[in-house]
């Protein structure tokens, strides 16, 4: 339904110039990002989610173009799926239509708002909105609505003096409608957890990831990505 | 056997025990002096075990008072029991432990410093030294009885309370126990309180005794006196009762004739006259096939035993 309405809207306004601008913006970001062939980075993950109590964890993320990515940790680490791979290419891997909307200020920085509508039924994402920084050629924010898992937002913070378009911090926020926790090993007869929740209420949460010690273009072998998780 | 009349070892006063509707012991009074072998007689169910259990604080009396070694049993239980050794009914032990281990545990619980040597000594005394390592569950009843005696003697107590100690023993075993009791009393100057339902057994060893029935005392006193005072009756089994009656009619023996049952004639005479009467009957053509003496005490005891069963 949303798609139909959007289409009509877009067809009324001049679709082609908006699309052209959007494509240019996205390509600039991708080109910039493609300077990174691979990287290894230390991450600190802090999870603040309604139904989840998880300790802060430390891990390493490995990335190699175009789409190899791996999370490794000595102990335990939990990361939102969409936050593992934030390369612009990931967002644009499938067929899509991109529309430039307008320029907006985001945290004091001028950004261009681009809407991405995936084409076809395969994608879980219905609609994404990107806040693209045209000057630094990076994505500063993504907001996506999914079919089954509600809406999530990724905010990316960069160290402006850094050589590569790799964030130093990512804040992943989400909102999902229903929760289906298995009853196994939880006993109804038990005193409930002190952190009470209203069952089936919309779930909110934040995951904050801090990146440090980037090692970029070091020639990571494929074997790093082949091990079983 | 001596008794030191001035030292009371056991003093039971007005002792009673009621179980719901049953008066198991009713107003019992007993005095046992130092050095006594005191016979506590009664048929089964007379209240003997109940009394002994009260003596050993297994049961609380409903009424009455018990003093042992001059001390109140309720108030000075621990110091009294330290000096008492007892067997209560059938001796039961920890079957899964050896004879030695059972005795060792008992001595440690009592706080007595009993050496291994002493334990073996006592086992030797009761004839179980060779089986000291065997688990008690492999013991016969007689062997358990002996072990019961061993645990009673282990700490060399002043007062020994034995509840039917010869039950289940063969005649040889019974004699050994009787000899042991005499030895304890005569040679070791122990006081022995012995309960039994066999008069003959008590006669052999005791110097003083009491017969109880249905919880109350019936007869008591020094054994010798009781037996002497107890009238002897002798039953002569004859071949011709009518003829014997006729012969006896005009003699003094006739006054002593108590009764006739079939061909048995019962006379109330003492030991000395038995041979004389026998000679008289035989010389007068009466064949005597048997002469059975009974004492009235024995008869009395038999009677009440029959009643009880």
């Amino acid at each position, binding site marked *: 339904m949303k798609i139909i309405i959007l289409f009509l809207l877009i067809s009324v306004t001049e679709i082609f110039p908006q699309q052209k601008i959007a494509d240019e913006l996205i390509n600039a970001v991708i080109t910039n990002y493609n300077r990174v062939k691979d990287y290894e980075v230390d991450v600190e993950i802090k999870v603040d989610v309604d139904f*989840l109590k*998880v*300790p802060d964890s430390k*891990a390493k993320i490995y990335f190699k173009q175009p789409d190899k990515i791996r999370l490794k*940790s000595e*102990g*335990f*680490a*939990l*990361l*939102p*799926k969409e936050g*593992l791979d934030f390369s612009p290419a990931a967002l644009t891997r499938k067929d899509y239509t991109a529309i430039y909307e307008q320029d907006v200020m985001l945290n004091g920085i001028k950004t261009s708002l681009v809407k991405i509508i995936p084409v076809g039924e395969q994608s879980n994402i219905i609609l994404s909105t990107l806040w693209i920084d045209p000057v630094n050629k990076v994505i500063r924010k993504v907001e996506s609505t999914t079919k*089954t898992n509600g809406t999530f937002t990724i905010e990316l913070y960069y160290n402006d003096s850094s050589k590569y378009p790799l964030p130093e911090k990512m804040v992943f926020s989400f909102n*999902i409608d229903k*929760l*289906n*926790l*298995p*009853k*196994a*090993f*939880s*006993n*109804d*007869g*038990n*005193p*409930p*957890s*002190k*952190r009470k*929740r209203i*069952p089936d209420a919309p779930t909110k949460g934040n995951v904050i990831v801090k990146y440090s010690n980037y090692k970029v273009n070091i020639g990571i072998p494929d074997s790093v990505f082949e091990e079983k*998780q | 056997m001596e008794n030191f009349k001035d030292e009371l070892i056991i003093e039971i006063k007005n002792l009673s025990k009621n179980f719901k509707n049953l008066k198991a012991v009713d107003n019992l009074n007993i005095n046992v002096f130092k050095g006594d072998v005191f016979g506590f007689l009664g048929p089964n169910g007379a209240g003997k075990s109940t009394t002994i*259990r009260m003596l*050993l*604080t*297994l*049961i*609380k009396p409903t009424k009455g008072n018990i003093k042992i070694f001059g001390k109140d049993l309720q108030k000075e*239980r*621990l110091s*009294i*029991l*330290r000096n*008492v050794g007892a067997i209560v009914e*059938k001796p*039961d*032990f*920890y*079957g*899964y*432990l050896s004879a030695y281990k059972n005795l060792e*545990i*008992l001595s*440690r*619980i*009592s*706080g007595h410093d009993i050496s291994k040597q002493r334990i073996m000594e006592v086992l030797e005394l009761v004839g179980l030294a060779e089986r000291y390592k065997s688990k008690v569950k492999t013991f016969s009843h007689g062997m358990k009885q002996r072990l019961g005696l061993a645990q009673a003697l282990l700490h060399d107590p002043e007062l020994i309370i034995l509840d039917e100690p010869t039950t289940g023993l063969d005649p040889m075993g019974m004699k050994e126990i009787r000899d042991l009791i005499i030895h304890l009393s005569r040679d070791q100057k122990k006081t022995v309180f012995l309960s039994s339902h066999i008069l003959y057994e008590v006669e052999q060893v005791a110097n003083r005794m009491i017969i109880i029935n249905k919880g109350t005392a019936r007869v008591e006193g020094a054994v010798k006196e009781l037996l002497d005072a107890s009238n002897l009756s002798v039953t002569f089994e004859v071949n011709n009762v009518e003829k014997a009656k006729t012969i006896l009619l005009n003699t003094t023996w006739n006054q002593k004739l108590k009764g006739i049952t079939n061909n048995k004639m019962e006379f109330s005479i003492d030991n000395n006259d038995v041979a004389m009467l026998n000679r008289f009957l035989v010389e007068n053509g009466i064949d005597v096939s048997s002469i059975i003496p009974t004492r009235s005490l024995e008869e009395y005891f038999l009677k009440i035993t029959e009643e009880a069963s």
Partner: protein
Amino acid sequence: MITLINIELYKIFKKWRTYIGFIAIGILVPIIHIAMVFEGKNTIDFMTRNIQQSFVFVGNLLNTYLISYIVLTSLTVHIPFLITLVAGDLLAGEATAGTYRLMLTRPVTREKFVTAKFIAGIIYTNLLILWLALMSLVVGYFIFGVGELLIIRGEMIIIFEQKDVLWRFLCAYGFASLGMTVVASLAYLFSSLVENAIGPIVGTMAVIIVFVILSAINVDLLQSIRPYLFTNYISSWQLFFDDPIDMPEILKSIGVLALHVVLFFGATLIIFKRKDILT
């Protein structure tokens, strides 16, 4: 008193029935371990299926902590039975064997006698729980290693950091010991009333099972009785696996259980002191 306790412990450990508990745990726990070797991954997947939709995670979640947690939850009826086997026999067994006459004619007060046996019974209980802890945690460690502990409490998924887990287990096992001490005290009380160990064993288990059933039925009247049933507090060891820890609730549970121990043991003392020994 120490002598008496030592003697009672000696007697307890000389009886074959004492070893049933240790053997049972020695078999049951490894069976659970073996099952988890094959099915453990499925279990984790099942527990985390919801977060797996949106999250990627790494870590050794199938570790000795998770399995020990599962062992503790699934054995809350089995362990009481193993406790009653010994505790129910402590006094009744003497009656059956006829050894009351032997023991209670010694120069020892009945209070000391009963107390020493009780303490020996508690020691057995604690040893059994210790054995459970060793079989779960230690054997599990060699098979599965350590890692974070993932548990589900009501609507929450809680993952405890590896270094934040062991002390919780130590407290939980300690708490389980207290819970089982209550069971032992009840069996002991029943044991003082009868002459055969079967009665106390069956009686105690009947009480536990009835209380557990009553607690589980979702009827208002029965739910209002629930706080008064001691079985309700035996599983409060799970309170240690919460963040933040509900200390008042834990202390309340400890208090209730301790009170039960005192009451049951106190009753036993009174009964036994007055008892006529007829066996």
